């Protein structure tokens, strides 16, 4: 059983997945940030691999990616940083990134190395299901990595079922059809989440995009298993003097 699945067995509500960008704010702060997230209540860590053209991300995460790239972050450097992470990090680690840097690294080599350093799952927003089914899915499964597809309020019911069948670990429900960090009235997505809950999908559902405080976190968790926080945390990190206190203050405010 994967480490991600274990989390949902132990805890079926209010699961908190926090996104951070590898190599941000400093090249070597990746593990410090992960440690702080684990210390202060993150159940899962989504680690973003920075890319020059991150289509599915909003301005805040893109900015953190640019800084991480300027800092010198690459997939190779990241794997080096993560090589002993399992001595201290016990929560599941999900790598989030775009296809192009992974293709240059070598897709299979990437999966192999990811497992070797202790990564549990992948979120690759620009890997569509056709290419997943025909080319890459087999390699991901071969190395025992979970693969998490995104769904949106625009995704049809048939397609949700298909993406649920292809996913393992959890399903990532985008709360509004928008790039990350977009401010929308949360109430309008409640119905969408309610509908998802009633579909009784195989995977737990984590909702992301637009969650920034305790109220939005609780609202998101009402109809699904937990929530993903990205832009709001990056914003908090950029404004805090040290990573530990910044993370502590931020997460206390979310979990309460």
């Amino acid at each position, binding site marked *: 059983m994967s480490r991600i699945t274990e989390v949902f067995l132990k805890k079926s509500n209010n699961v908190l997945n926090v996104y951070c960008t590898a190599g941000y704010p400093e090249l070597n702060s990746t593990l410090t940030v992960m440690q702080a997230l684990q210390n202060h209540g993150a159940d899962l860590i989504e680690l973003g691999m920075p*890319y*020059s*053209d991150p*289509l*599915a991300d*909003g*301005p805040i995460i*893109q*900015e953190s990616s*640019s800084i991480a*790239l300027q800092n010198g972050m*690459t*997939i*190779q450097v990241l794997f080096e940083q993560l090589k002993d992470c399992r001595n201290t990090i016990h929560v599941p680690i999900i790598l989030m990134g*775009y*296809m*192009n*840097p*992974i*293709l*240059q*690294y070598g897709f299979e080599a990437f999966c192999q190395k990811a497992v070797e350093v202790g990564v549990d799952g992948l979120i690759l*927003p*620009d*890997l*569509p299901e*056709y*290419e997943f089914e025909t080319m890459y899915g087999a390699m991901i499964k071969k190395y025992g990595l979970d693969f998490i*597809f*995104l*769904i*949106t309020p*625009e*995704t*049809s019911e048939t*397609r949700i079922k298909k*993406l649920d069948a292809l996913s393992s670990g959890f399903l990532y429900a*985008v709360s509004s*059809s*928008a*790039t990350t960090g*977009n401010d929308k009235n949360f109430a309008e997505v409640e119905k969408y989440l309610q509908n998802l809950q009633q579909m009784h999908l195989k995977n737990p559902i984590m909702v992301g995009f637009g969650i920034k405080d305790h109220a939005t976190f609780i609202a998101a968790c009402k109809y699904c298993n937990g929530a993903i926080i990205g832009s709001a945390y990056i914003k908090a990190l950029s404004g805090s003097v040290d990573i530990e206190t910044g993370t502590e203050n931020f997460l206390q405010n979310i979990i309460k």
Partner: protein
Amino acid sequence: MITEKTQNQSFTHPDANGYFGMFGGAYIPEMLHRNVEELRSRYLDIMQEKSFVKEYNQLLRDYVGRPSPLFLAERLSAQFKTNIYLKREDLNHTGAHKINNAIGQVLLAQCLGKKRIIAETGAGQHGVATATVCALKGLECIVYMGVKDIERQAPNVARMQMLGAKVVPATSGSQTLKDATNEAIRDWINHPNDTHYVIGSVVGPHPYPDMVARFQSIISEETRWQLKEKTGSELPTHVIACVGGGSNAAGAFYHFLEDTAVQLIAVEAAGHGINSGMSAATTQLGKPGILHGSKSLVMQTIDGQVVEPHSISAGLDYPGIGPLHAHLYKTGRATFLSATDEEALKAAFEVSKLEGIIPALETAHAFAALHQMHFKPTDVIVICLSGRGDKDLSTYMQAMEINA
């Protein structure tokens, strides 16, 4: 040498999943799926509807001024001791081939019930073309343009604004065409219902490369019958076109792709020189990768970060190339040459003095390639004169000052 053409596969059409050989596809986040899928499932049917065909052809004729002439450039021909014909896309309304696609896509967007049109632009030609058609059709138009390009291309920014479009500066990343494209894609993600994204080149996720090539294919469709009238044969020996993303080349090659006797020459921008670090010659410098939703050749670092190209012409200043062209390159169906900034400038002045036609800087690259080739007196060469040079006058004026 042609190595990868199989019996059933044409060069012209991608497979059902949008692949030209190994290039193409639709590498898009789920947030774009519904929009792209709606387009994919309907574009071919709409493009074949009688009412659509009628309106498209009528606008091309009465508004754009098609067919664009095929002109025998006698003095240029004499210089290269061969027969050179110019396909005059520069005479189109708005001054370039871009309008062919803009009209097609805006009409298609109307058929899909879209009320809001977005576009990206580099030099501003595609932005102006899209703003023009939106004005004609009374549709809201938003054009994303890199901050640096807004500074470099002030007259085109003013033209778009005069046409009623809103020009939104793309401030992320390198602040040029690639980032304007990212911003336009994000806008589309944030407006999943009422918006159509008019991509200006044969790039992007399937069905864009095929759809844009179809809208530009009017160039070679006309060339065939025009050549027949003038020479008695529909087929030239060579077709030459410049390539950034590759829309004018796709249009100029389209109806000759399966006639393998016709040599297709694509000319990329070498910038300061292929190995100068300041170039946009994607087939020479790129590797297979994914950019803006399709797998193609992409200029990138060893770690897979997309790099900022350089060309004196903003229209060729793009780190990728359409998947059709990547396939033509890989299979050898087209020959890829390149011209430096300096060679392009020289060619622009040469054509201006020999033929009384000031070409766009992009097109000047196609002319520059003439100097790298050898022709027989019996050869028939078609050069796609993709745009006029009015927009490049300040660059040409600088060049004249330097050489004065």
